[in-house]
């Protein structure tokens, strides 16, 4: 590395890390957040508040309700309302079991029983789970209470969840949040570092100084590349040691993927900075980029089904590539073709962003 560039990089690193709060945001906050999201979020619907309206003699419905409460998904709902619709509307319960007048038990004996469940469907995912839990519980209770021996089904499916058999939340969430924490640090910081110099007018000074354009760009990006990469061991250690996220694949591949990812985010940060005049614009632009990038990453909702004209946005989303890579390498042990194509795609994104940034720097400052 030539001395000018080295000086540049050192200056930039000192300038960033001088502030203890910045060190805190860079190295401590991601760990806190990873812990938070790894523990807090559950992909399984639990603690569903259930209410049931039935007559005292209706023992089958009572059994259904008790079986549900004694299971692991439901908790009893408390409500002052007596109208089942209001019980749900007021938010006191997520589901209500209703029987017809005369009771479920009596009509079961006559062979024309009806039972109804009301489910709060504001959260679509939760509503679907609630329905399937309840319909199984009702079926089991009815066969038990009426002493019907359930006939075995002729065809059964043995469903196994690979890579995460216990549906462990941390294994789902941690690789995903890792990418987001890293991209926020690198992309936002690079973008901001360049725009800050522009806003303060020091960028013009740099141009007039005896440094080449390449040195300016490299001097502004390498420090953030280093910072981004230095976050990775911390985050990875927390993920594997504390959250027991497996690391089945090759470590070299993991490092390659991470380097490619950080390179891409830094390059994209540089590119975004060429469009911004001041820091408030830079922050809005970063938001404009990061928000869709997080949404289209595949952590919040499946991305396979998006309309094709939206899907191309996922093709320029570095988080989507990197999250796929992390999951493939860490959880599955890695597939060489998949790894190389995705890392390749990240590098292409990096090169294109840097190339456009160069072009734009020349025209705006040259």
């Amino acid at each position: 590395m030539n001395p000018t560039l080295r000086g540049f990089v050192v200056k930039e690193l000192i300038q960033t890390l001088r502030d203890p709060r910045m060190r805190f945001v860079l190295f401590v906050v991601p760990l806190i957040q990873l812990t938070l999201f790894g523990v807090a979020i559950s992909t399984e619907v639990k603690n569903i508040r259930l209410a049931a309206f039935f007559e005292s003699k209706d023992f089958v419905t009572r059994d259904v309700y008790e079986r549900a409460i004694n299971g692991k998904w439901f908790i009893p709902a408390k409500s002052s309302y007596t109208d089942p619709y209001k019980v749900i509307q007021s938010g006191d319960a997520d589901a209500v079991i209703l029987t017809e007048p005369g009771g479920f038990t009596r009509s079961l004996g006559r062979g024309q029983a009806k039972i109804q469940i009301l489910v709060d469907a504001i959260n679509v995912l939760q509503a679907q789970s609630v329905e399937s839990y309840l319909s199984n519980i009702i079926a089991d209770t009815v066969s038990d209470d009426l002493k019907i021996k359930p006939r075995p089904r002729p065809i059964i499916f043995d469903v196994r969840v690979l890579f995460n058999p216990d549906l462990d939340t941390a294994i789902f969430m941690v690789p995903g949040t890792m990418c987001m924490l890293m991209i926020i640090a690198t992309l936002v910081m690079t973008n901001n570092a360049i725009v800050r110099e522009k806003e303060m007018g020091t960028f013009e000074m740099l141009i007039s100084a005896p440094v080449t354009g390449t040195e300016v760009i490299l001097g502004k990006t390498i420090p953030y590349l280093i910072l981004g990469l230095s976050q990775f061991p911390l985050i990875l250690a927390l993920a594997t040691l504390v959250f027991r996220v497996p690391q089945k694949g090759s470590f070299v591949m993991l490092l390659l993927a991470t380097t490619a990812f950080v390179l891409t985010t830094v390059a994209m940060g540089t590119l975004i900075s060429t469009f911004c005049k001041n820091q408030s614009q830079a922050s809005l632009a970063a938001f404009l980029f990061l928000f869709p990038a997080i949404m289209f990453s595949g952590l919040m909702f499946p991305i396979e089904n998006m309309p094709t004209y939206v899907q191309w946005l996922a093709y320029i989303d570095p988080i989507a590539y990197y999250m796929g890579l992390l999951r493939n390498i860490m959880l599955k042990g890695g597939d060489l073709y998949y790894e190389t194509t995705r890392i390749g795609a990240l590098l292409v994104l990096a090169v294109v962003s840097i190339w456009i940034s160069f072009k734009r720097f020349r025209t705006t400052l040259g």
Partner: protein
Amino acid sequence: MKKFVWRRAMTMARKEVFHISRDPITMVFALVLPVVMILLFGVAIEFNPKDIKLAVSDYDNTQDSRLLIQQFGSSEYFVPHGSVDVNLAVKDVFSEKAKATLIIPPRFEKDVYNGRQAEAQVLLDGADNSTVGAIISYVGTISSLANERIAGFDARRPYHLRTRFLFNPELNSKWFAIPGLAVVVMTVLSILLTALTVAREWESGSMELLLSTPVTPLEITVGKILPYSVLCMVAVVMVYIVARTVFGVPFVGNYWIFGLGCILFLICYLAEGLFISIRTRKQQLALQFGMVIGLLTTNLLSGFIFPISSMPKFFQYFTMLFPARWFVDIARDAFLKGSGIHDLWEPFLALLISAAILIFVSVKTFKRDLEP
């Protein structure tokens, strides 16, 4: 403490309006961005995946096994593709060419006819949290169909179960997602808008000038929050129009309740942004904090997608610190449920308290900063 003078606060507000109008890009961002985001994600969000790639390894290769594959293929959920070898089929999951593998063992048809339980195996990709739940429930549906159609199994129960999905009878993903999405977008936007204002004044040195005037911290705070809340309210109205017209999301609640909730919620986040700005005094740092707090926590902990009630107890309480979590309740209620204010007193009270605390803290910190 000096008296609060409205005129001075309004002068601050006017100065801030000049600031915003001089920087049209910020204004365009603030107004256009939420609408674009809602349009984009409203189109894209669908929680029930379709056309899931299914690698099939059929060792039986009989009429029944083909019928079983057809049950998967004719549902809109799966697109099967065949592999002869089971290892190849499973490998498709490792190389992301398939989300699930169906393995039909030899003797499948024989077992069905001889009354032994015929067992097929489904292995699914547990690395992808967004599809696991859906695939498991699809397999359940297909299992019932297959039993009925292939083995002629009469699965009728001695009772009739009717499920009514309230407030979103067709389980429309967009109705569920859009009100929450709007809250998340507005949260980040409002934090970002104010997070930079005070830091910018410190960096450019104009804060020193402000300090020498008789204006008090509370007046500065009010003066800075006011214009941005007007800007954000306009953005909310635009988001509302898009949600109603483009995506057909109903609005069954009361406009006054929704509007009031909206203002409280915006004040909370504008004040939070201001607080970050006052504490950090540097735009880069303020931005980093704003992003970290606004972007990830509201996305993941506001109940927007991952239900709060499913979280461990401690975190259910923890989410109460985030005003967005409360406003998600209010917004969903206003759009889909339409219950009265007496059912919403909790979120309103929480927002009110948060707003008061955040403004108080901003003003206090400000004061300390002014007289070091």
